């Protein structure tokens, strides 16, 4: 509880963080919270879900409970005050059962900051993970909140994965080796992070267009969630091959050309790390 109190004044006395105060890659860890028998009883009463799986003596705390706890722990981090206009979405996965007596803490990573079209606010997407005392992920997902902006921008693009602005910055950071490795290639490379995808149209070693979609579509697309991209660009070394081997990156499209571009993709990730 001490940790919460130290972190909280920010949101009690001022507006809390505005959109520009968030940076992709920032990580926060909350104080621990233990699930009590009262929690179980209260939640069962509130929801009316008395299925033995959820309400029995060894009951698993039902779905929304974990999200509610995560949101409460998030407030304890002292980041959000009146500048927050509202929660936009929650995508959630359940990895391990959560029961009375378990102690969890919230690990939160900012994975995307995107200004709204109107420009006076921005959407901050946070990867949120409830972790138990053994360090295991119990539940995880993402939530997005709309936050007031302090000014009109512009905003940094180095970690705006999958956007055209990010793609353009990445291309500018590619080394000559990239062109050499694709000297005979003609195609388009799709890079996707969450719902955002950008295509690098390549002809004979030169990137001739960076666009949301190449005219004939990408030859192949490499894709991962925003957390994976965030971890990829903030790791001490280029971990792309490890991530791909362990399934954290996926691929759609022409698998043959994807393999052929093994070296080129490694260089793209080098550039992405360089601009991050």
């Amino acid at each position: 509880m001490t940790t919460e109190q130290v972190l909280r004044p920010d949101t009690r006395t001022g507006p809390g963080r505005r959109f520009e105060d968030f940076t992709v890659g920032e990580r926060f860890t909350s104080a621990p919270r233990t699930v009590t028998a009262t929690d179980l009883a209260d939640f069962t009463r509130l929801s009316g879900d008395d299925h033995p799986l959820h309400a029995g003596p060894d009951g698993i705390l039902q779905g929304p409970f974990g999200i509610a706890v995560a949101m409460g722990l998030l407030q304890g981090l002292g980041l959000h005050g009146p500048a927050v206009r509202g929660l936009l979405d929650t995508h959630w996965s359940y990895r391990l059962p959560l029961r009375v007596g378990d102690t969890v803490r919230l690990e939160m990573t900012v994975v995307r900051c995107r200004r709204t079209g109107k420009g006076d606010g921005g959407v901050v997407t946070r990867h949120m993970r409830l972790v138990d005392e053994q360090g295991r992920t119990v539940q995880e997902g993402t939530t997005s909140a709309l936050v007031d902006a302090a000014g009109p921008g512009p905003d940094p693009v180095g970690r705006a994965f999958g956007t055209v602005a990010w793609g353009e910055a990445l291309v500018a950071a590619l080394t000559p080796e990239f062109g050499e490795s694709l000297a005979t290639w003609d195609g388009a490379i799709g890079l996707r992070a969450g719902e955002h995808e950008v295509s690098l149209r390549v002809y004979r070693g030169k990137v001739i267009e960076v666009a949301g979609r190449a005219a004939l579509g990408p030859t192949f697309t490499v894709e991962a969630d925003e957390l994976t991209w965030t971890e990829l660009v903030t790791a001490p070394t280029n971990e792309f091959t490890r991530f791909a081997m362990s399934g954290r990156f996926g691929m759609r499209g022409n698998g043959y050309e994807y393999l052929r571009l093994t070296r080129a993709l490694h260089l793209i990730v080098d550039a992405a790390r360089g601009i991050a």
Partner: protein
Amino acid sequence: MRYIGIGGALAFVEEHGPGGDGAAGVPVLCLHTAGQSGVQWRHVAPALAARGFRVVVPDLPGHGRSEPAPGGPVTDLGDYAAWCLELIDALGLERPYVVGCSIGGKITLDLACRASERLAGVVAMAANAWTGGTPSERGLRRELSDVAAPSRTDRTYLGTLAVVGRSVPAERAELIATMHRREDPAVSNSDLIGWTTHDLRDRLGSVACPAHLVVGADDLWVPAAGTRAAAAAIPGARCTVLDGIGHYPMEEIEGFDGVLAGWLAELGSEVAA
């Protein structure tokens, strides 16, 4: 160093003895990984010999300086195990220890299953009894017949870097990965077909020699759980998980000869007990 006829073709074999090339010392047979060669043991072999062992490092058929297997690239690790027994006979190795890594580790386990009584003990590294069918045999066979399978050397290089342990200095990891580019893809792929199709699960209970299974915690190809399960199925076997180490302990660990000599001493004391 010599060439010797094994399995109908010439095999290249390094021999390191306490007094140089020679027959003195307790024999240790060292087996390399898929597609590679005895060069993986270049630091370990002479240092282990200096500790009093007779170290024998063959290049498996089709690898390094050995001639190809007469029947074409080997896709059955049991064939390699039979080849090793023929080598043990030809060199007159009496109750050798066998140490292998990756496919070499699985060949080592196979040797323990089929000829425990002839071995002093085995150290099987980066191996399990059954892969669960991953990688898929179908994919490997397709790549075998598709000669244009792209970027092979880059995939070997980057794939090796990805499975070397995080505690290994960057320079050493770079050297390991660069040297692994030297492979015959037809042979490597055949080795991997052998790796993914060889199922020793029902035979582990028959192992009667001391056995030690070793796996690196950072080995993305061989999860520790599978190696632990294999060790649990072998009577009296021990299992070690190496923190910060990946798929190639003998190349990754500085002074590995000392580590290995310790393990062999433990296996030897089990025989005495």
